[in-house]
């Protein structure tokens, strides 16, 4: 449709939509500023103890100190790298498992209950075992991140694969399609929205894996800094790392959302 063809009323409608969007963004920023302001004020006026609750100015100072010592980049990099690795390995592995189970009904029927049980098991319980098996290095942390995302990926994708419309599969069979063709031309493309939703979940999952992994073993990374900070009672450090973590997870989620937008098709 041509933009010129829009009626004045339609344009007014669009303008209103735009205005609402801007107002929402402004309110979001305002909320953040008020929150930071109250926090800062509360510690300054002694309503809460700045030593325990930290404050925006203390966080900022900690952040710049960490940065100038070169520590910030090192720790951020360590955690991000572990998370991305866990994210990719977990997603690809989970996907492969889902494909294998979808492909072979017998295998699916045998292994699906195990997958369901594994899914409800809190993977953190496996932490001590992982340390013994994979050592106390990065391998243990990545394993943790993989473990947390792989099961949910496999289960989500499998459910999606199995929900492919039977009549569409029948259509493929009228052309005498084989299993691989049915998968690659129908089942997989039909599940791209599902895959993207799973990726979004996995961003969170792999961060959980990385941070808990770092709690347990690491000598670097944001999880390590948080545990270290709490042990020596430097709560400014804990707060700073938590905030950095928020930003990183948000950034990663944002990239997946962007990817989703770029492949969105009209259903």
């Amino acid at each position, binding site marked *: 449709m041509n933009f010129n063809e829009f009626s004045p009323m339609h344009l007014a409608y669009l303008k209103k939509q735009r205005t609402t969007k801007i107002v929402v963004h402004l309110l979001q920023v305002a909320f953040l500023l008020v929150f930071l302001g109250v926090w800062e004020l509360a510690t300054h006026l002694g309503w809460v103890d700045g030593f325990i609750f930290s404050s925006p100015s203390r966080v900022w100072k900690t952040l710049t100190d960490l940065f100038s010592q070169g520590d910030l980049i090192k720790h951020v990099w360590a955690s991000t790298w572990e998370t991305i690795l866990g994210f990719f390995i977990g997603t690809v592995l989970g996907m492969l498992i889902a494909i294998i189970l979808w492909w072979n009904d017998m295998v699916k029927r045998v292994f699906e209950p195990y997958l369901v049980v594994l899914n409800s098991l809190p993977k953190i319980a496996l932490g001590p075992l992982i340390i013994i098996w994979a050592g106390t290095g990065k391998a243990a942390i990545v394993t943790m991140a993989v473990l947390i995302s792989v099961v949910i990926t496999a289960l989500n994708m499998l459910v999606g694969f199995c929900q492919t419309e039977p*009549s569409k599969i029948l259509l493929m069979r009228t*052309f*005498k399609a084989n299993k691989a*063709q049915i998968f690659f031309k129908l089942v997989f493309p039909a599940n*791209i929205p599902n895959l993207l939703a799973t990726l979004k979940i996995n961003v969170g999952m792999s961060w959980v894996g990385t941070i808990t992994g770092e709690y347990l073993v690491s000598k670097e990374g944001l999880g390590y800094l948080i545990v270290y900070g709490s042990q020596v009672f430097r709560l400014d450090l804990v707060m700073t790392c938590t905030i950095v973590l928020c930003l990183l997870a948000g950034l990663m989620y944002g990239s997946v959302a962007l990817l989703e937008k770029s492949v969105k098709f009209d259903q």
Partner: protein
Amino acid sequence: MKNDILKMQGVTKVFYTKTAQTVAVENLSLAVKEGEFVAIIGPSGCGKTTLLSLIAKLIEPTTGSILLSSNKKHAVGYMLQQDHLFPWRTVEKNVLLGLEVTKNLNYETKKYASDLLEKYGLGDFKKHLPSQISGGMRQRVALIRTLATNPDLLLLDEPFSALDFQTRLEVCDDVYSIIRRENKTTVLVTHDISEAISVADKIYVLSKRPAKVKKVFQCNLQEYTTPLKRRESEEFGKYFEEIYKCLNGADDEL
């Protein structure tokens, strides 16, 4: 005398499930000649879809034989009840699906499919997604997807049932003219008497489940060139009455 392109003899199909066994088709015989347009009419649930699945060799008969004269690997084109266009593929890509799957996609077949789209008024919509075109157009796309593989025998399963009445008449005219121009032998299944009379040379009336052939009608309306003209013809009412009686009459007349 033209040859039989399809011959079914004494075909029975029984479905087994956990709780029951269903006889969907029982001792059914029929024949379709080259170039013929055959309609099979029967009440809902009588086993019509099962019959087409048997002809398309998607399922095996429990007993009986189904012979196709063609020995081409993809001799049968089957158009299902719904269009089932893939929403992520453009109209053009949807039409090429069968060719891709049967590994027959080359310059010539692609051109053939593309010409079909042009010829039947979809040339401007090649790059559109299925959600952007009307229900009637989608049905035409589904038909062209089936025709693109150039089958010797075309099977249509209630192809208009998903459309509203007005569109149904139009699309029926379209589909009929496409099939006639492409000169395809066709078996159309329906529960709509008027639809059957408006397109077919020969009509098989089936009983309630399990499907048996009750009666075969020869339709001599070939002088009318479109389904709509057939519907408006004098003889139409007579055929309708006869078939209506047969369809709703007692099964044990046989």
